[in-house]
């Protein structure tokens, strides 16, 4: 057992973990944060994407011990406390970026990591950033439209 300290969605957390746990296991199975999904457990589908120190990572391949002293953002941390959706979440809702929804949290987190670091990302950059997130429902068309609309909204003064 190891004790780790990390920042999760703005809150400082101390947690006793087993060394072999993945971050995905810690979040989902131990902490009950079910928003982060497991689609393959093998780093191939991106459903488990979270942001660690501003980088989008596959939490199924990331050991929980490595989260020590890191800043972690998950899908649960995006909406504001009054329930208002993050512009990316709202854009995915409004533009049909969500069907079955299983890829959506990962898709939104990958998009957020990109736009946080590169607010003017080109279409090619968006496609590149989302290449590791598989979606079987949408054909990606409305997902890319969602990110594009969110980008414009955020550039126009919408909060990030």
């Amino acid at each position, binding site marked *: 057992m190891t004790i780790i300290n990390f920042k999760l969605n703005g809150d400082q957390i101390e947690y006793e973990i087993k060394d072999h746990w993945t971050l995905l296991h810690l979040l989902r199975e131990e902490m009950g944060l079910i928003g982060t999904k497991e689609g393959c457990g093998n780093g191939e589908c991106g459903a488990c994407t979270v942001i660690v120190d501003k980088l989008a990572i596959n939490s199924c391949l990331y050991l929980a011990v490595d989260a020590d002293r890191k800043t972690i953002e998950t899908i649960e941390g995006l909406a504001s406390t009054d329930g208002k959706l993050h512009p990316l979440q709202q854009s995915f*809702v409004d533009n049909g970026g969500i*069907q079955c929804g*299983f890829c959506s949290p990962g898709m939104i987190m990958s998009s957020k990591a990109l736009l946080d670091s590169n607010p003017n990302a080109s279409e090619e950059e968006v496609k590149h950033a989302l290449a590791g997130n598989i979606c079987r429902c949408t054909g990606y068309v409305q997902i890319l439209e969602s990110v594009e609309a969110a980008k414009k909204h955020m550039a126009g003064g919408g909060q990030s």
Partner: protein
Amino acid sequence: MNELKELSIVGKRIPKLDAAKKAMGRAEYIQDIKLPGMVYGKILYSKYAHANIVKIDTSRAKALPGVLCILTGDDVPKKMKMGFYKDNPPLKKGKVCSFRDEVAAVAATTPEIAKKALDMIEIQYEELPGIFDPEKAMQPDSPLVHDYHKTNVLNLPWKLHYGDVEKAEKESAFVVEERFTTQWVTHCCLGTSGAIALFDSNNNLTIHTNTQIPSLAQKDFLESLKAMGIENKRVRVIKPIIGGGFGSKLDSYAYEHVAILLAHACRRPVKIQFDRVEEFKATSTRQPTIIYIKQGCDKNGKLTFRDMRMVLDNGAYTSWGATTPSVMMMPITSLYRVENVRYEAKCVYTNNTYSQAFRGYGNPQATFAIESTLDMLAEKAGIDRVQIRRLNRNQPGDVTPQGFKISSCGLSECIDAVEKEMVINGPKEKGIGYGIASLIHVGGGARIYKSDGCGAILKMDDYGKVDIFTGGTDMGQGMDNITAQIVAEELGLLVEDINVVHSDTDVCPWDVGAHASRSTFVAGNAALGAAKKVKAVILEEAAKTFGVSPDQIVMKARNIFVPGDAEKTMTIDKLLRKVHFSPQGKMLMADYFYDPDNENMGKDMKGNMSVTYAFGAHGVKVKVDEETGKVTVLDYVAAHDVGRAINPLLLEGQVYGGVLMGLGYALTEEVVVRDGKTMNANFRDYKLFTAKDAIKIKAPVVETYDEFGPFGAKGIGEPGCVPTAPAIANAVYDAVGVRITTLPITPEKVLAALMEKKKNH
């Protein structure tokens, strides 16, 4: 067309009702559900494609602390068999017939212990020669997959002959003939399969499971209980939010029945959750096909006959894949006008995996052969490819040789819409090609089962809110929205006033399932029927209040009023309270069961399967790299006749998603199977399109207003992936002059064909 007048809610781009919940990570999938006392089940699969099970020793595994129970084929009641052909016990006994055969199952307190226990089960096999090629399996000297069946060819009725094909062939000016093959592809639902089964103290079963067919699954599970000696009990099927369906959940699976057996054996809720490798190996694929086709036309290009024969690799067990010929018959007999048609399909047991329903249900396979050979025929006859399609197009009022009554039909307009966006026959650069292909699909239900019905129960509260309990199943496609929009439109409410309750057999009425692109049409009509009944009572009550006749009253935007009379207006919720809290008060409730006026196929396979049919045409521009054989899709138009768009936002989502799924089918996707073994059970080696490969798809909507559809609508769930493969194949031929007849159209195949072509020149 006045039927297509602007409406308040129907026709609007209203976001998916559960999208915010999903965007916030609050949607609960089977992966997310934990019940008190729940334990974990795992399944052990065969090590061989074909082998006798000599001995199973579970003693070491049983002794592992945390293991609650272990089951083998010996513990499965004899009559517990899955699938319509009843050839598939949930755990196999005596012999295994494919790598995905379930041979033992464990329930343990943690998934890790269950997995460890599987490794400790010792099984002694005696390997048998396998048969993996369905055409070889048809030969009399082939090893038998199931000895009791006497032959590898299944006893199924897939045969029809209308008109006189042989005579028509003789009289044809031009005839083409080709052999096509299509591959195994798999659904790749992002959320893997899973179920939780639990029995209450009275032996009633509740099962939370990923299904598209709550009512038919309930029947399957009741049969399992009966086989287990548990009779006259209740089965409650609850489908949580699921991470995609696409047909994969149209039949019950072994894991669901195994969860039931384990839950009964250890008296605890048992969860079986697939991992991705298991999802690839132990769920069912699209039906692969070997297709022999001949088509002919007269000197003007009018189709004279179509003659098709298929061999379908059934795998070792039988699920809906073996019934896909029933839907293949639709394009075969009814895509374009063709009077003389013959078709025969043989489903053949092999030691491969078995197939299931998959978006389009056989239609993409048949349409690939039909539309590819139509281009070949056009070339042979010297007729423009678009022209031959226009010449033979279906038209409203047609009755096809199979007895399909074409009500609305926008095929012609769909071809127009493709041509508006893309010049199919225009000048082009080297390596660039254009392709076109059309489709017909069921658009008004599909009477495959004895009933094609859907029930709905609607109740209104004192505050103007509606709960509608529907038999329809949402799996991400938007059945919930369509239901809510239809009810809101009819009752003059807003979408947020409508709560759609679905996928729980304890509270929702019967429905045959989310398949055949039928939810908008059938569940939509069921909801509309219930709403109309309630509306009639509301209008009657309002008429008394206002002192006018009901037909003078309008319900809109939460208000009920007499147009032009400012005195006679009130909010709907106020009226509801008035009706409720009066002497002999009333609550507004209604039920409605809609069973479409379509027909089961007769012995001759004739019958109007669907109340109405959906049509479409796709156009594609590709670039073929002659050095590498790589096909790049540059532009795509998918025009669909949808009757009426209830929600264009969701409709486009269905088309875009269908097209990309179809492009995967055409170009990249294949479950690689070697001697029965799945070789690429992961997303690295199973090639799905990613966001990087995404293309801009134009999706013009043709609204023909179908008189039978709710507000004129027809189904659109499946059509997007139906004509994609032939459109691509036709474009590749147009670009570089090679005809690829086996899917997927990989660079290797294109390059080999190009080299072959060079050699022959």
